[in-house]
């Protein structure tokens, strides 16, 4: 506990590549929760020991595929009720998962535990510049309250420039 500020956690964790589960990297992090103001995201400092695996090839293939689509990509329910994700949609799901990590971080307190649950809806927004833009409606599962929370997020991505969430907003749950 840091007096006057809030509890601080020291973490040692292992990062595992989703696509290649044998590829792991050690990581240490310090997380500081702001006791006073719960509307501020916790501070996170981290160090990665070693390098994350290079995903350039897969990134470029995905990028080219989407850029060359005649019509904007539209999809829903990823994964579907049976946990199925088509191969073409897998990168869309991974992108949502990564982007949702930012949303979770921004909305975490000591008493929340978020998991990404599902993409309800995704629509590509065509851009004149080199970025890909997707408008997502996702579901987050908050494990302490057990709530399923719909969340809208606008995600920008480029193979060399990474992921950005430019806009996000919590949606009302329907009864």
């Amino acid at each position, binding site marked *: 506990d840091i007096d006057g500020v809030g509890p601080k956690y020291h973490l040692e964790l292992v990062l595992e590549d*989703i696509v290649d589960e044998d590829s792991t990297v050690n990581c240490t992090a310090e997380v500081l929760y702001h006791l006073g103001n719960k509307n501020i995201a916790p501070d996170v400092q981290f160090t990665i020991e070693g390098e994350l695996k290079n995903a350039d090839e897969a990134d470029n293939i995905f990028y080219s595929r989407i850029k060359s689509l005649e019509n904007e990509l539209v999809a829903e329910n990823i*994964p*579907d*009720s*049976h*946990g*199925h994700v088509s191969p073409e949609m897998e990168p869309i799901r991974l992108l949502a998962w990564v982007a949702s990590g930012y949303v979770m971080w921004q909305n975490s307190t000591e008493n929340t535990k978020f*998991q*990404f*649950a*599902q993409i309800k809806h995704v629509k590509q927004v065509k851009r004149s510049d080199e970025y890909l833009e997707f408008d997502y409606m996702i*579901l987050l*599962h908050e*494990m*302490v*309250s*057990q*709530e*399923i929370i719909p969340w809208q997020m606008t995600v920008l991505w480029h193979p060399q420039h990474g992921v950005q969430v430019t806009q996000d907003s919590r949606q009302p*749950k329907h*009864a």
Partner: protein
Amino acid sequence: TSNMKLILIFSALFGASLCLESFVGHQVLRIKTRNEEEVKKLQLLDSLEHLELDFWINPSTPALPVDVRIPANGVQAVKAFLESHGIEYSTLIEDLQVVLDKEKQDMACSQQRDRSSNSFNYGTYNSLDSIYAELDHLASEFSNIVSKMKIGESYEKRPLYVLKFSTGGRNRPAIWIDAGIHSREWVTQASAVWIAKKIASDYGKDPSITSLLNKMDIFLLTVSNPDGYVFTHTTNRMWRKTRSKNQGSPCVGVDPNRNWDAGFGGPGASSNPCSDSYRGPRANSEVEVKSVVNFIKNHGNIRAFLTLHSYSQLLMYPYGYKCTKPADYAELDALGRAAANSIQSLYGTTFTVGSICTTIYQASGGSIDWSYDYGIKYSFAFELRDTGRYGFLLPVNQIIPTAEETWLGLKTIMEHVRDNSY
């Protein structure tokens, strides 16, 4: 001599068909011999090959009965012989062909059931109707040990079906297992049906389950929350609660695992009907919960209460409503770890073991807290695969592996219960 007479009489009757395909009119007699002399007379009969007597139990000692199949044309003569020598007998089978025909019919019937039951796919998520049909199928295919009982009805009047696995006895000590109390946790209902099939098929083959069922009964509630389950299929895949109407609120449903009479109203449950952890207006307000409570209380001899949830890969014992250790902490923790090891042995899936409060969060009104405080020492809650990658939407190719590993964990606990009566 009388023996010579014997041979003459029976030789006269020699003939008829050597073809053994038809057993029309063949009778099976059970002969009770009182002394060695009578045994010798039957052995003589045996030596008369033209009679084509087929001894199912051979004449050897007066202590044992002699069972013999007699072709149709020899029945009267053999009976006359026995009566004239004062040898006691009874008719076991009046007409063997009738018995064989019935058996053939039974086999064809059950084969057809097997063929049509191949339409139930254990490796996918099935509708409620499909699951209920399969419960019926299991109860009829394994009718010697499986029966289906209705323990109540859901809010929307769907039956709550429990499968009883029993080899007899009256009110034997029993194990309770339930799944699907939270309807979106689909791998639990799916695993439960697989486990039902596993228990039924393995009885008589697997030494562990055989010895277990020879002493104890198992009660399995595969779909604890059928209204919720149907709703996850028709409307909202992420529905968790029951579907009961809440007075004065537009929001529907109560969290059935906050509704038990264990620390009810305490921290870790919501008083807001719109919440996914809404505890309900009072303990046992949900008929789905009340039905189980009534069953357990009326049975009076339940020794273990095991409940399946997903996801997170956890194996937990009480308490959830308070963070103090249960009196049996040491034993439950050790047993939990043993069960987790069994689970891990199959596919390497790791489960974290601990009390609910220290492992996930404080939560009041939970089922295993109620069962434990009621006196059922072996109360455990499982959270099955995975740890969040797919969460509730676990891909179908993981259903059977999940069921298989979960079964090993359940078995470890059940074996301990079997060997530790209390």
